[in-house]
């Protein structure tokens, strides 16, 4: 993505904040020095704002020390799990639905399919809005938008009065209402009338034609219901932050001079004036005001931050700094790979944490999906396409009834954590696979009093994680407990503890390799054209092995690997997506389509102006969802004059055939409005010598599949730009540990990224 200069206020401290389950991460970019500073605080789930405000106070203290006279000006981009947790833990608003007569159960019937095929107990997640809270009105609009049954005013009033007089079965009054009428995307008039009245009556109302004006009633209802359910929660949270911080109003970003000083209640933050943007799941940010009305857009903001960060890092390393010596600059071949033959960046992102791993693909832009599901609820707005699997450092190894060694998806989590943590074993949660006896086949349910072997235990036993240097030595690990746990499994398999550990790693890698294949190969991409960008605490020990398996030539590990989502938020543009189902025939002229796109584009432009984006920084991407008539799956293509031929060609490329004379349907129009925000200009550091010996801290035995070798250990924080390491070696950092295999070579670039070139060894 080309960044252009902008009047988006420059010179301000840029802060990325990501609330996660365990930690709240802060990444601060100081434009005056070009430096990045990161830190983590324990999350405060009872009141997530607490950790955020504590972190901001710290930042304030640091910077006021610099110049106590000035008012600090901050640009904050914030991603949080507030909306996500409200959905997953079902602690959202008391929500009702108003819909077309005959369709109140759409939310319950879903698409009629059950979540698991081979499980008699399979049962879908209960609907967010229970039956007694789903109301119907007499009205009908047909597929062309023609009103076939008019909506009487009386019907609206009746529904609203029902919502205002809660029955005995309801514990608390309704505060949020989803309004979803059939074919409202073709003619929103009825929905508009209901929504206006609801809002006038003081309800928080989410209308489906505003949230997702697209056909397929279940997905639209679900998306709108999720919005109605989580928005009031995010709204409350943001109000809390606003009360503590002095936030500029929407649109204030245009001015770079504050007109009045801040006067918030929090003393340590009184000298601060901040603008805040909220991270969305589509990879861009929106204003606080938009976020509180459209919280469904913020559901998966954390993982999205990671993908945006990957793109940013990729772009950063693609532009060689003048100080980079020739041997560290990209070779023409590498440049071709990174740039995808001039079309843009090509990266596979790999975020391995304690319980799960997220992967995604960047082909100049992150990939988008409209088929996401969170907690069993479809969310059909455009989101970054991130594939998550239940394998991580804490995944538990066990033997199943058929004698196979299995790893995950059950995780030991942070508590009790891997065996080597030495914490007391607690009973594990449900949701485990059942064996032939219908019992949970997990050994923990047979025997409760010994710790479980995990992927992390295998890494400890193999010597890949130094037990005395985990999380910067803050947490000692007990390798004898790891060995004991693995030995117990090995005895049953006739393997040594070490062989078992190697097996656990191989199987965990097989899980992750499959996820990377689904993301790349299954979609027609060749991993050889990609760089694997690894972040998250657990990925560094697996990335090089996975790259070799998939023939990915290079692994890149950012210095901000453990605060990467917050880091990515610094680089997020303001992005808004607009869509409209139209079902136009393919013979429509491009002028006609252009005319139909115009209102969406205009709305995008207006909304970005409201967000403080200047005209010259606005990019409007128009696209069409098209298919052959009779198909029910669309291809999304940029709108161009010759869109018909583009479609035939894309269909041939994607599916191997086309039908040159075939009738085409234009299903949806889309506009993505991007307000470009200049990325932080991180200062490249001077390249030092190739000799990394100053960072070498130890020489220790490490087990590989072909035997044990004494290999050097390096302290990551001490590595300097230009340093080179020949594998096998291990780099230990406070936040992660990185394995460099034999025949791999690693170097540190000017931005402190560790870049591992995968050797040819099979």
């Amino acid at each position: 993505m080309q960044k252009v200069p902008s009047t988006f206020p420059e010179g301000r401290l840029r802060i990325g904040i990501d609330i996660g389950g365990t930690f709240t991460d802060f990444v601060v970019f100081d434009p005056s020095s070009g430096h990045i500073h990161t830190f983590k605080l324990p999350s405060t789930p009872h009141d997530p704002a607490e950790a955020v405000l504590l972190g901001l106070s710290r930042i304030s203290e640091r910077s006021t020390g610099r110049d106590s006279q000035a008012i600090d000006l901050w640009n904050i981009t914030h991603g949080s799990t507030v909306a996500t947790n409200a959905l997953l833990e079902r602690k959202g608003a008391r929500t009702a639905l108003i819909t077309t007569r005959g369709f109140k159960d759409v939310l319950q019937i879903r698409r009629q399919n059950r979540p698991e095929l081979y499980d008699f107990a399979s049962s879908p997640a209960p609907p967010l809005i229970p039956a007694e809270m789903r109301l119907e009105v007499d009205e009908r609009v047909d597929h062309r938008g023609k009103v076939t049954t008019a909506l009487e005013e009386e019907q609206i009033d009746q529904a609203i009065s029902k919502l205002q007089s809660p029955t005995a079965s309801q514990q608390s009054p309704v505060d949020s209402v989803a309004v979803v009428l059939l074919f409202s995307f073709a003619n929103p008039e009825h929905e508009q009338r209901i929504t206006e009245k609801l809002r006038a009556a003081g309800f928080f109302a989410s209308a489906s034609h505003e949230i997702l004006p697209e056909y397929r009633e279940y997905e639209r209802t679900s998306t709108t219901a999720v919005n109605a359910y989580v928005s009031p929660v995010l709204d409350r949270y943001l109000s809390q932050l606003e009360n503590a911080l002095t936030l500029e109003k929407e649109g204030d970003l245009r001015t770079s001079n504050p007109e009045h000083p801040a006067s918030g209640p929090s003393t340590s933050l009184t000298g601060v004036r901040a603008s805040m943007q909220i991270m969305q799941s589509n990879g861009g940010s929106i204003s606080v005001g938009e976020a509180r009305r459209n919280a469904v857009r913020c559901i998966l903001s954390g993982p999205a931050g990671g993908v945006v960060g990957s793109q940013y890092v990729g772009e950063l390393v693609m532009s060689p700094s003048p100080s980079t010596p020739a041997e560290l600059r990209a070779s023409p071949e590498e440049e071709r790979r990174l740039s995808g033959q001039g079309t843009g960046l090509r990266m596979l992102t790999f975020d391995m944490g304690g319980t799960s791993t997220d992967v995604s693909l960047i082909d100049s832009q992150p990939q988008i999906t409209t088929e996401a599901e969170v907690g069993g609820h479809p969310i059909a707005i455009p989101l970054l396409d991130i594939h998550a699997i239940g394998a991580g450092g804490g995944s538990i190894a066990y033997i199943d009834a058929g004698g196979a060694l299995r790893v995950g998806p059950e995780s030991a989590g942070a508590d009790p954590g891997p065996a080597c943590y030495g914490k007391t074993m607690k009973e594990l949660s449900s949701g485990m696979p059942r064996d032939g006896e219908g019992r949970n086949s997990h050994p923990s349910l047979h025997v409760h009093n010994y710790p479980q072997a995990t992927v992390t235990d295998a890494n400890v036993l193999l010597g890949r994680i130094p037990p005395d240097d985990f999380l910067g030595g803050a947490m000692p690990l007990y390798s004898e407990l790891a060995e004991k746990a693995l030995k117990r499994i090995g005895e049953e398999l006739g393997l040594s503890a070490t062989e078992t550990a190697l097996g656990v790693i191989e199987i965990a890698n097989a899980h992750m390799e499959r996820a990377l294949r689904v993301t790349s190969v299954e979609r027609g991409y060749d991993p050889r054209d990609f760089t694997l960008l690894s972040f998250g605490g657990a990925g560094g020990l697996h990335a090089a092995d996975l790259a070799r398996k998939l023939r990915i030539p290079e692994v890149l590990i950012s210095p901000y690997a453990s605060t990467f989502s917050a880091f990515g938020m610094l680089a997020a543009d303001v992005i808004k997506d607009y869509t409209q189902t139209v079902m136009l025939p393919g013979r429509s002229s491009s002028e006609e389509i252009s005319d139909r796109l115009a209102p969406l584009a205009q709305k995008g432009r207006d909304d970005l102006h409201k967000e403080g984006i200047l005209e010259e920084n606005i990019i409007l991407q128009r696209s069409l969802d098209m298919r052959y008539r009779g198909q029910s799956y669309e291809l999304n293509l940029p709108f161009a004059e010759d869109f018909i031929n583009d479609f035939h060609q894309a269909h041939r490329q994607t599916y191997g055939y086309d039908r040159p004379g075939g009738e085409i349907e234009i299903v949806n129009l889309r506009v993505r409005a991007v307000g470009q925000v200049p990325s932080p200009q991180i200062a490249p550091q001077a390249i030092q010598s190739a000799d990394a010996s100053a960072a070498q801290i130890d020489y220790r035995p490490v087990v590989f599949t072909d035997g044990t070798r004494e290999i050097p250990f390096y302290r990551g924080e001490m590595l300097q730009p230009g340093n080179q390491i020949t594998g096998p070696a291990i780099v230990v950092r406070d936040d992660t540990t990185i394995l460099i295999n034999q025949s791999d070579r690693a170097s540190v670039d000017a931005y402190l990224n560790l870049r591992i070139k995968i050797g040819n060894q099979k």
Partner: protein
Amino acid sequence: MNHDPIRLEVFKHRFAAIAEEMGAVLRKASYSPNIKERRDYSCALFDDQGRMIAQAAHIPVHLGSMPLSVEAAIQKFNTFRASTDNLDDPQASQGLAPGDVIALNDPFRGGTHLPDITLVTPVFVENDGLPTSQRSGAPALFGFVASRAHHADVGGITPGSMPVAREIYQEGIIIPPIKLVEAGEINQAALNLLLANVRTPEERLGDLRAQIGANQRGALRLREMVEEYGHAEVGRYMETMLDYTERMICRLLSNLTDGEYTFSDYMDNDGIDDQPVLIKVKVKIAGDRAIVDFGGSAPQQKGSVNAVYAITLSAVYYVFRCLIGLDVPNNAGCLVPIEVIAPEGTVVNALHPAPVAGGNVETSQRIVDALLGALANVAPERIPAASQGTMNNVTIGGIDHREEEPRPYAYYETIGGGMGALHNQDGPSAIHTHMTNTLNTPAEALEYAYPLRVLRYEVRRGSGGEGQHRGGDGIRRDIQVLGKAQVTLLTERREQNPYGLNGGQPGIPGENILIRGEDEIPLPGKGTADLRPGDILSIRTPGGGGYGEGQIQAKDLVK
């Protein structure tokens, strides 16, 4: 232990990933809403003997029947096993070669019912492990990949090809195993013949191409795996995979108390004679072996409720697969310790030329009900009460006059219902159960595509059987036709209730009603009716059975 427990797990992922990737290709490239929106398809891979190694979790009714398709392809084309009836067929005498794709839908030669067209692709690999001088040069047959998809129309007497017929010739075009693609070249003559016999040829062509594409992808991935690990190793782990699933099922069986357990259930009728159709089963468990004997079941029927053997096998397979638990490869190992006896000429093993359209969708459900009923005697805490026991097949066809150029349409759909309760939970409502798991057609998609209007789509409250735990409720779906149309219904459990267990009440049977003005006219469970413009077809699907005696708790009332 004769396998490496680590590699076993690694290969399990690889095999499963191939079948899943085939499914992704098929879904995205196909035409029919049946395949794309409803996902009525399956993909699987097989060893060189045609034993299924992995099947993606798509549609249970295809489980046991996909291998029979591959077996039929081998019987027809593998010259080494050529039977005498192949001698006059030049295609068959040439055997299988790289680039071939065999198509079939003949229920009596590897198919299930006619709309399910299966494509089987043999996978050849270069000989490896041999010195170059000893290589024969010819690639060797290594295995098969296959895809099956429910095509929206394959001809026959009613649009959608799910008629209530008297013989199979009325149900659509019959495709015996033929090479639709021969050495990489489409057999245009065969294709033309096929397309000339269906109502929506363009759509068929698109779907067949999608299936060919899925098979190509699967074959490519299998060859890549052989390149990576070698011929012998992949072959060995195919074997290991079968042993693995077999061990799982043996372990399950040995944990069940030895003995004979019987149960009988009935289909409402065959759509022609108004007589219940008996499905009888005796399960004999002895150690880690089981015999499932359908002896005593009704003879094959005049109407289309006949199941071919493949269907019966699939139903048995499904039940035991569920009892094993999650995440076990779906492969031929599952049925090794289980002997399935289905006497020829009965409704569970019908012979040519019986009509079979409903065997796949309806009889398969009743076979599951009967088998579950028998097993409830030995494992009451793991077996649910009867679920809706039907797929509620509705086909509406006519001419769409909404645009200048009138065009024929055929809309086919199955409708969910109530699931049976378990000893510890209520059955979910309004959901597809047991042998199917297809998605609905959204009302908004349907109204764009066809001159129809959905007036109601709601939970049929109160239809689940009561008990300590309640059966799930069925669905009511009302569809108005805007022009003249013909409707074909193939539905069950309109008379025979889905049973409750352990004192739980049965679910309420389904109803098919024609609403014409003020009149409500009951329609039979199976049959064809002409509809006038404005008529409303109201399908009300059965509830699931309840479990255990007892009062309904207040909280259970809110569903």
